[in-house]
């Protein structure tokens, strides 16, 4: 079995251009697998528009539901809940308030349902999230949709990662392009683990620099090669130079300096990647070079 090159695109700060760059890298060579791991706000499908042939339910967790026919209002569950997800809600029929679940606070740990002396708490699965597998013009795409407000986006990312590896294995794909989520939490961590390369897309702004350092710090804790791309690099040349010298000091290669080009936005509006939309642009030329660097070793 050949080894698969998993390239994870992250940024820390949102809106730096992860998805546009992931889409560009995923539309260069046939037989690529694209994995959208921003399950909270998935956008890659808007450019790749895959033809999904498989849809699966994802159980993100469980929520506690009280059966009031059995509940004796003893309050043991409320005393044990560490998420403040059980309260005594003011109610005309209950002097002390009625034991109720605060659904948005429930973590789905099951403790209340296990300790309830009269078995009055049921755990109901949250099954409104899905993941999908489809064909797109350069290969296969795995993506997902987390239902609003649901937990465990990191676990869903792991499902997408696992499925994309399996798919790459089956179709002999060499590269998996992972479009990651913003932030440094569970979803970002799940997008990093087991990847061969991490590309951090940043922008020359005070916040871009701040967040780039945090995500590179996180990535440095994993066995993964780190690279940086500076998007909209002509926006502030002073900060761009700061980023470059900081990366040089840390030994992290800056593999792309992409200028601001409104055609990047136009390509998005046209649902195409930048080199599909503007093959002669400077950015498209850079994307080819970046791809060579990331896929050769």
């Amino acid at each position: 079995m050949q080894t698969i090159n998993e390239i994870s695109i992250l940024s820390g700060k949102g809106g730096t251009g992860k998805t546009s760059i992931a889409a560009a890298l995923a539309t260069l060579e046939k037989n690529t697998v694209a994995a959208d791991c921003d399950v909270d706000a998935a956008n890659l499908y808007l450019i790749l528009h895959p033809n999904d042939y498989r849809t699966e339910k994802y159980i993100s967790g469980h929520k506690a539901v009280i059966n009031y026919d059995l509940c004796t209002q003893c309050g043991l569950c409320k005393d044990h809940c560490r998420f403040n997800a059980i309260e005594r809600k003011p109610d005309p029929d209950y002097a002390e308030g009625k034991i109720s679940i605060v659904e948005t606070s429930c973590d789905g740990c099951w403790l209340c349902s296990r300790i309830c002396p009269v078995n009055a708490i049921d755990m109901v699965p949250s099954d409104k999230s899905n993941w999908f597998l489809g064909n797109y013009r350069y290969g296969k795409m795995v993506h997902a949709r987390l239902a609003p407000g649901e937990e465990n986006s990191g676990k869903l990312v792991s499902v997408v990662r696992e499925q994309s590896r399996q798919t790459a294995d089956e179709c002999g794909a060499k590269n998996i392009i992972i479009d990651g989520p913003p932030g440094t939490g569970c979803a970002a961590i799940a997008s990093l683990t087991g990847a061969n390369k991490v590309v951090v897309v940043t922008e020359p702004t005070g916040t871009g620099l701040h967040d780039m350092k945090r995500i590179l710090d996180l990535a440095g804790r994993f066995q993964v090669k780190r690279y940086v791309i500076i998007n909209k690099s002509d926006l502030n040349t002073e900060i761009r130079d700061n980023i470059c010298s900081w990366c040089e000091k840390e030994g992290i290669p800056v593999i792309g300096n992409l200028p601001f080009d409104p055609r990047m936005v136009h390509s998005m509006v046209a649902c195409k990647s930048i080199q599909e939309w503007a093959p002669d642009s400077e950015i498209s030329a850079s994307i080819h070079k970046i791809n060579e660097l990331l896929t050769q070793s």
Partner: protein
Amino acid sequence: MKIAIASGKGGTGKTFVSTNLFAVAEKEARNVTLVDCDAEEPNVTVFIDGNTISTDIINQHLPVIDKEACVYCGKCRDWCNYNAIICLPENKQIYLIEDLCHDCGACLAACQYNAINEIEKRLGTVTVKQYSDTARIIEARADIGVYSPVQVIKATLNKADNAELILMDSPPGISCPFIAAVVPADYVVLVTEPTPFGLNDLKLSVETLEELEKPFGVVVNRAGLGDDRVYDWLEEKQIPLLMKIPFDKKIAKIYSQSQLLVQEDPIYEARFLELLKTIQGSCKP
């Protein structure tokens, strides 16, 4: 009054809008607190800072299993819904995968042999800063490598109870960190950009807020950059468009230098003040 500034998509301008709103409110001598709830990437203090009054460390509990008392019955493992406990009775082995622990206390409640105690593990910090006589900044900052920032966000929001006006710069997305930040809000300002990505994620945020029954309005940032579909959709859904901030390299430059637009341009000072008034008007029952 609590106003959350949020968006599904990252990088649309949440921090840009909240810091500029804060600056105009502060100039009006309002009693205002800006809470940076984006604990994974706190950015407010890149733009505005103050004298640190306090920094609190936020911890979670972690179970510690006393191997003398443990009988390897496996009940704690069975009760742990996060698969954080591995128990191999044949080998008398039991251990905890720290990163998977959600601090729910189920293992503690499960153990009948008093073999589980708890220690504290650091998750991040809450820092309170005095910006001026009437204005404060409170920052949630999760430590690098921490899986969930939710406890840090909740602890931060608890610190912000007494100001007359509380602005909450929220984390992106629609999952638990976002919910933790918008649940206490009286009104939510959704910031988007007129692109297919922006619109797609705006729809997800709206769906979530409708489920939570929160009143909200929309600010379109970088207007003129993409297409008009977002305006058509807002009109169709009858969602109030609170403000349009044009795409302008001058504004981008000011942002990149970590400066506040309202302090550089009096026209925008007036416009953000108007935005603040519009939001407050929408809040009243």
